[in-house]
């Protein structure tokens, strides 16, 4: 292993891979990405991989818009041999109450102002998009046709392979055990395969973001929560958009492969980094999805699994250098939407590290927003 690097990235998920790729593209020579398990073992390989631009905060809207534009050309840009299974079938987000609809109206206004062409639609219009949708308990919806999905494994693989071609060292089954800091500055990392001297370390450790920040003696306010998801056998295309409801606690989408994936959250989850799935989830998920989309009664569940959401108190990521530790950068706390933000994460972190002008001013997403109490809370999270 290299004993010196310009940048060491802790975590080989989509965030770490996108950051490495962008740095290498800008000419940084010695970049090492360290992944403690296999490629995709973290949240990236466990996620729903939905991409949407319908958000309730300006920052989330901007990050997702930039990322979506990137996804549209990712296969060419990353020169990937395989299929990213990119789909733009839209996201249909359902409102169950008038107050929820009012919130959506505000969200759409914000999105439109930022160039995202989402729209508020009626139940009848929603049924034109998904004819078998049960709208008895729905009062309206929002829709944005550019939202969609990509295969998370191949998308991650595309970033990893492109980064490797440009000289990035991407090591799996190698764990960072310590981040050495001297006089308020990063000087190196210790790993299960030896030490690396470096003055720049990025924490892109997903569900383990807090554990990895601790390795440098830095406290961050992220926490991880188990989220479960299931997939059905592939069937003919019947469901064009992602159907999502915050109040009914469900998101479900048919992916290009034909299978339908669906997930929900559970506020009472223990925060113990457990990745096993439960029967309760299957039971609740089946009830919710079949009451909303009855034809799915006849579809078979193949597998259920779980992964970690790494959350922050305001459900927006933490991006940037730690104020007290020079050279220690955070790309964490994506709160369940780090897959769809990855292109922006890669671009912005590379700009921060190289002290370039930022494509989007994300100074509001720094770690110090928590101590200053400057939180803008994202309301639209499932």
């Amino acid at each position, binding site marked *: 292993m290299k004993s010196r690097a310009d940048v060491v990235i802790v975590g080989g998920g989509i965030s770490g891979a996108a950051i490495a790729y962008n740095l290498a593209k800008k000419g940084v020579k010695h970049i090492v990405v360290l992944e403690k398990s296999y490629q995709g073992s973290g949240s990236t390989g466990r996620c729903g991989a939905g991409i949407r631009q319908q958000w309730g905060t300006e920052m989330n809207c901007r990050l997702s818009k930039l990322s979506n534009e990137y996804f549209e050309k990712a296969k060419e840009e990353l020169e990937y041999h395989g299929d990213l299974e990119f789909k733009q079938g839209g996201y249909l987000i359902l409102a169950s109450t008038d107050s929820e609809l009012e919130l959506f109206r505000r969200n759409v206004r914000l999105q439109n102002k930022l160039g995202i062409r989402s729209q508020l639609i009626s139940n009848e219009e929603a049924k034109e998009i998904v004819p078998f949708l049960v709208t008895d308990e729905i009062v309206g919806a929002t829709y944005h046709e550019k939202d969609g999905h990509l295969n998370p494994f191949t998308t991650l693989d595309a970033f990893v392979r492109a980064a490797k071609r440009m000289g990035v060292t991407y090591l799996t089954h190698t764990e960072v055990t310590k981040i050495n800091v001297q006089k308020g500055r990063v000087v190196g990392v210790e790993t299960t395969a030896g030490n690396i001297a470096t003055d720049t370390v990025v924490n892109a450790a997903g569900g383990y973001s807090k554990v990895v920040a601790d390795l440098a003696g830095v406290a961050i306010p992220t926490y991880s929560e188990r989220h479960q998801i299931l997939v059905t056998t592939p069937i003919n295309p019947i469901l064009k958009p992602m159907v999502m409801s915050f109040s009914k606690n469900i998101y479900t989408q048919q992916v290009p*492969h034909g299978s339908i994936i669906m997930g929900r959250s559970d506020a009472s989850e223990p925060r113990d980094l457990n990745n096993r799935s439960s029967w309760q989830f299957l039971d609740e998920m089946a009830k919710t999805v079949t009451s909303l989309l009855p034809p799915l009664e006849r579809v078979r*569940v193949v597998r*259920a699994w779980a992964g970690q959401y790494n959350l922050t108190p305001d459900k927006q990521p933490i991006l940037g250098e730690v104020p007290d530790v020079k050279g220690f950068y955070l790309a964490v706390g994506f709160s369940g939407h780090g897959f769809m933000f990855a292109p922006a994460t890669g671009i912005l972190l590379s700009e921060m590290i190289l002290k370039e002008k930022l494509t989007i001013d994300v100074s509001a997403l720094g770690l110090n927003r928590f101590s200053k109490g400057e939180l803008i809370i994202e309301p639209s999270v499932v």
Partner: protein
Amino acid sequence: MCKEKRTVACRCEDVTLDEIRDYIGMGYTDLEELKRVLRISMGRCQGKTCLPIVMRELSIATGVPLSEMKPTTFRPPTVGILLGDLAKGGLVHEE
């Protein structure tokens, strides 16, 4: 279809032995990663058919003995269950 005999290794996801060998040749030598790019052992049978074949191919290519290889995780439910049956709470399924 090509002239040669097309040996299907994963019947659920229709992956051939040649594809598996090609991917191993491209550097996908970690079983977990091979699984995720080719969807082998992610279909209905969760690898009951293909996993031994894939592991044997990996063992031949990498020299790692089969005894040192860990199979992929088997995830619930072990048989495909209709969402409708799950919703009703009745877990009976036809054999």
